[in-house]
């Protein structure tokens, strides 16, 4: 195992895409300590900012308040990254495999454009979770992001496939321009959920304000919700699917695009 402990709070953001199992798995202790990071515009070594223990492992642990450390786990494809504390923006962006676990909060662009793997956040996340970067045609294309707390704006913006589950409330524009995949909102959302969505599924366990361009279509218990529920229950998030408990009211939209997406709102019995 490789253990990195932040020496002191960072005065400015640190860009550190080298903090990833892919980079460190084959490196000896000295090589890990010498990896380059950018503190503001200045190039630094990893051990200028972190105390480093261990070598040659694809289990990496980061301790301390890393809320100003950006790009942790960028493009990672393997291994396990554990963050005991907070993480900064772009955590797990472009990742294709492996798992990230965060005990605290994360910044914006969590898992942006990821194509596989698992991100688990115990605290709150920022905006643009699993989203497409500005200009890109699509956001996350596979994988799972599970957030116990709240999340910010544009959760799952232009996502194409994969699953995002959020325990707390999310802010405006969840599923903006969504192209596919599933977003589960256990505590509902603020405004304009599903705006411009083309396809995909947004599930809300609480009533949410609905755009006028979404039309109610049916009340039912879709079979696939059982699969979603089973998948998420393994990750500690309970989602009801049984008929005995209630049913989902299905809205289709966004007719403004026009899209064939759906928003399922849970109605307990």
């Amino acid at each position: 195992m490789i253990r990195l402990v932040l020496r002191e709070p960072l005065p400015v953001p640190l860009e550190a895409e080298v903090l990833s199992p892919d980079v460190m798995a084959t490196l000896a202790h000295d090589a890990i300590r010498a990896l380059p990071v950018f503190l503001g515009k200045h190039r630094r070594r990893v051990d200028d900012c972190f105390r480093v223990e261990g070598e040659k492992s694809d289990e990496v642990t980061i301790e301390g308040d890393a809320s100003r450390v950006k790009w942790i786990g960028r493009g990672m494809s393997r291994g396990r990254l554990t963050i005991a504390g907070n993480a900064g923006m772009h955590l797990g962006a472009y990742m294709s495999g492996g798992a990230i676990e965060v005990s605290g909060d994360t910044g914006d662009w969590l898992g942006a454009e990821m194509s596989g793997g698992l991100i688990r956040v115990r605290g709150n996340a920022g905006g643009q979770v699993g989203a497409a970067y500005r200009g890109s045609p699509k956001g996350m294309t596979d994988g799972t992001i599970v957030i116990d707390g709240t999340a910010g704006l544009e959760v799952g913006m232009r996502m194409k496939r994969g699953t995002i589950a959020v325990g707390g409330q999310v802010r405006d524009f969840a599923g903006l321009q969504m192209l596919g995949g599933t977003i589960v909102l256990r505590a509902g959302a603020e405004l304009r959920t599903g705006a411009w969505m083309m396809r995909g599924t947004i599930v809300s366990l609480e009533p949410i304000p609905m755009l006028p361009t979404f039309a109610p279509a049916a009340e039912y218990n879709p079979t696939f919700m059982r699969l979603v529920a089973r998948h998420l229950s393994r990750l500690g998030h309970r989602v009801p699917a049984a008929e005995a408990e209630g049913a989902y009211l299905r809205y289709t939209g966004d007719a403004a695009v026009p899209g064939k997406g759906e928003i399922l709102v849970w109605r307990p019995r």
Partner: protein
Amino acid sequence: MLRITGGTIYDPANGVDGVVRDVCIAAGKVVADVEGGRTIDATGTIVLPGGVDVHTHVAGGALNFARGLMPEKQRVARKFLRTADRRGGLGGLTPTTFATGYLYAGMGWTTVNEAAVPVLSAKHTHEELRDTPIVDKSCLLLLANNEILLDLLEAGEVERARDVVGWLLWAAKVYGVKAVNPGGVAAWKWGKNASVMHEPVEGYEKLTPAMIVSGLARLVDELGLPHPMHLHCNNLGNPGNVATTIETMQALEGRRAHLAHLQFHAYGGENWSTMRSGAAEIVEAFERHPNLTADAGAVLFGDAVTVTADGPWQHMLHQLTGHKWGNLDVENETGCGIVPYVYRDRHVVNAVQWAVGLELLLLTKDPWRMFLTTDHPNGGGFWRYPEIIQLLMDAEFRRAQVRRLPEAAQSRIVLGEIDREYSVYEVAIITAAGPARALGLTRKGHLGVGADADVAIYPSKPDADGRLFTYPRYVVKGGEIVVEEGEIRQVVDGREYVVRPAFDAAIEEYLRPVFQKLYTISFDNYAVEPERVRDAEIRDLPEPS
């Protein structure tokens, strides 16, 4: 002073085909002999005049709009890090200004012609060209949809139109005239296009695209511009547009013109499902019109971004592809559209487009009339020219590529049946000597005594990918060695070519009130100040004939 010794020289303008001899350089020019100075041992290399790009888009408002529209491409573009003598920048499909200069020079190209500038954004264009190092530059003014000019052509006021064109050319500090989809961009402002040559343009009673083409070509000739009218024909990109292109050739009535990116104007068939190559018909008509030159506008599979003043076509392309679309209205002068595009080898239409560009280059017998371009960045980045040259020089390689295309595409092209292989001599014509001659740049594109000392020296053996011309061993620009062992070693500034036509200065009295009524800026702020163009080489033109 510099002597390049031992290399095999290809200098088509002077009839030199693979002769081992020295090239001597002094004071930035090729000279007969030098004493002393540095010697480059070019043994085992091929020596060509520096490349001349007759049609490219590297500066100005449209390019900047494309850069802004595609942040996702900028993120993955090749990075140019700042060094002691080089500025930082990004490569990719719309390279930043400094990177553009490094990329062209790094490939052995030393002169570029920016093919589309409206007067309204000419200041911006010149500022970007000023920041495009190493290469020499010229640019062309968009005129075929300038409404002040079209009104005069409609009214038959030819002499006044000629003075207006002369005034506008000098106001923009440009080198020549570009016509994009004549009448079509003006019609686009009414939501229409002009794809029929002999129907009046929307908003006009009599004026047809054919009249604009012939009228403007006449004005260009009368003003004595060194480069003929540079024409982007009507009906670009549509199946069956061969007919429009041939009508355009006829409408020119024997006047000089350069047909830009002919590949996009050489499609047969009636619709997208029957679209096929029309290259053979186009070449046949082209060869009957010795007044014309053309560039291929070839496409390569992969990413591109379409950047053109042809607004209506860009809207059509956006609807066809669903890709994002940007549209600019340039007041009374022109328009502009941007649509990112990917040419896919599994896509029948794209495969036909790919073949048409190569067919045009291979079927045209006289290389002095058909030049190598990709209409950068429309058909692919200019830095991919060596890939096209490889396809032209190796028939076996080319056939192997054709066999990989979808069968439906193979039956709509003739590329697989063409055996012609370009020689290095012919490559030197389509990349340097020919374009320089068409542009009227007498000191470019050759290595005779008195020529600008722009020389590209390449290894004589292809690289690991089978390509010549990707990494020149040396590039000399204006007598300075800018590339050495494949690396940029020295950065020099390029000059800009500008013409000053002779026109009646009293034309300002006519233009000023029209302009003040129609434009959003003041007439006095319109023209580009001469000092804004760095190292301008101004050519004064004689009184109109």
